[in-house]
């Protein structure tokens, strides 16, 4: 087995050998200059490819409808915030809040339940262990929309038992998010738990520590890096979820609170723009939805990167 790690990479390695940087005959210390220009060029172009469209969208919020539909190169005539007001009045703030509430709940539960299941599956021998593991893995890649219609009926029926879980309820959506995040979470945490050393855990057990306490007080802290990186994946995945909230967050009676998620709200805004041709409000809506996320990311990017770092470092 261990030899395969050595031979396998050689295949793509040879294929990639024709790439320019492999042809450099300069030594490490000296060749940096040429390579530096080369790499800086690529990196700068890619950075431009990302920043330019985003800035263009922000600029779009200040243009007029005619300008946006006229030329890509138009420059805002004035810097008024009308478009932002129009976009905000559609309730974007509320959508943000809804999204945060649901994400907070679903993330906590996903990590807790996923961690528990993965831990038991990874560290305990019992009959049916493999079967349950494969059951989870099998679900990891199926498209959600395949289950939508039966799912809708199921959640509606849950709502008839208790409104807390029904359509347009935070908790209902949270549970669905959790259920659909479990396969992925279990799959990756499973392999993570398997890599953890057994000695500490065994020592704790000998000291009479219960299984539950061993999990929460010993294994979870040890598994923190893995948990963090899977959590990051889950945040990104659930943040981008669209079809589930559209299907499940529907008011069931007149005047019920609107619990739309952010993406839903944005789509409504786009819809409005489709009817009334208000492209600036659409661009402003995108800006409003984009900026806080970017700000949050910028303030936490160290943690995000650290999470990913520690994940790959075990």
């Amino acid at each position: 087995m261990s030899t395969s790690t050595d031979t396998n990479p050689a295949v793509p390695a040879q294929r990639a050998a024709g790439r320019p940087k492999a042809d450099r005959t300069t030594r490490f210390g000296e060749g940096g200059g040429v390579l530096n220009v080369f790499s800086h060029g690529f990196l700068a172009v890619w950075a431009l490819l990302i920043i330019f469209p985003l800035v263009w969208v922000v600029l779009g919020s200040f243009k007029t409808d005619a300008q946006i539909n006229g030329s890509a190169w138009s420059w805002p005539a004035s810097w008024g915030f009308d478009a932002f007001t129009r976009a905000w009045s559609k309730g974007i703030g509320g959508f943000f809040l809804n999204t945060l509430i649901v994400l907070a709940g679903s993330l906590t539960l996903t990590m807790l339940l996923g961690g528990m299941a993965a831990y038991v599956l990874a560290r305990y021998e019992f009959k049916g262990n493999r079967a349950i593991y494969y059951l989870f893995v099998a679900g990891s890649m199926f498209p959600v929309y395949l289950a939508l219609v039966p799912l809708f009926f199921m959640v509606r029926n849950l709502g008839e038992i208790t409104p807390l879980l029904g359509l347009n309820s935070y908790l209902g959506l949270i549970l669905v998010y959790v259920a659909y995040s479990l396969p992925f979470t279990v799959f990756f945490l499973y392999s993570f738990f398997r890599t953890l050393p057994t000695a500490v855990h065994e020592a704790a057990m000998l000291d009479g520590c219960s299984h539950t306490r061993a999990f929460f007080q010993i294994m979870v802290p040890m598994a923190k890096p893995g948990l963090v990186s899977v959590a990051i994946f889950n945040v990104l995945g659930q943040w981008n979820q669209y079809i589930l909230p559209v299907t499940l967050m529907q008011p069931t009676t007149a005047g019920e609170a609107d619990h739309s998620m952010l993406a839903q709200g944005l789509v409504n805004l786009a819809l409005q723009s489709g009817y009334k041709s208000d492209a600036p409000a659409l661009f402003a809506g995108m800006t409003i939805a984009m900026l806080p996320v970017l700000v949050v990311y910028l303030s936490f990017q160290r943690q995000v990167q650290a999470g990913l770092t520690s994940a790959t470092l075990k």
Partner: protein
Amino acid sequence: MRHGKYPFIVGFLFLPIVLYVGLVLWPYAQTFGYSLTDWSGQSQEMNFVGLDNYAKLLDDEVFLGAIWHNLLLLILLPLVTILIALFFAFMLNVGGKGGTGGIQGVRGASFYKVVFFFPQVLSIAILAVLWGAVYRTDGAGLANGVLIKLGLADAAHPVQWLSDPDMVMWCVLAVLVWSGVGFYLVLFSAAMQGIPKDIYEAALLDGAKRGQTFLKITLPLLWETVQTAWVYLAIVAMDAFALVSSITPGAYFGGGPDHHSELISTYLMRSFLRNGEAGYACAMGVVIFFFTLILSVVSLWATKRDRIEY
């Protein structure tokens, strides 16, 4: 170890399994059932038709084309994204000036890392609207605007991007790569930072060239991370629905022009919602199921390797 082992196992597994079976597996199972019927999706009436829907699928040119497009994404998206991300990650971590300090990344590496990650935190709704504006087919589109300004496109015959049957899949691929590279760059850089510097320095002393260090040291040590990335990207490729259905031309869930960007999922949704062929759509869903099942098995097998200890 014996005391309370089974109650503990049951206690830990109960809730996750109930949620998962009830809200995920059971709806999927129902889909299997519907795939054997002629259900229209608009009433509760349906008749059992056996495997007719599957037989029809094999004859359906649009569906076969969709499978092909899905395969294309499944192969190219991970390949291109990973290559670019690896290249950038290498640049950022060991591509800098050598100098006395030995190995280091280029200047501004952390800036690039942050910027490249941006698309990942944007909602798919934003991506769709943004790229719709970029790929606009007249001079008001960002891409055409730039090309015309640079004299690379003719204002009278602007590039048709998503409306050109030969370009549309590549345009879709470009968006997916654009939004994905940052994440894998960060993932790979993290892994690269985990590689002890002295390995590089030892190689340096042995007279290794920069490209060689990448191929002989970095890539092998990163292999497991690359495999993980491949699995993530395969999932993204199977789920390109959100993007394709919203930016490509065509009535109801895109897939145009003239089915040239049709995916199984877009065709599935159109059959279901517009054409009133829910049973047929469910059969397509089952095909996706087997597709992904094979994929899961392959990736499980591929990731089942020992890691290199360092």
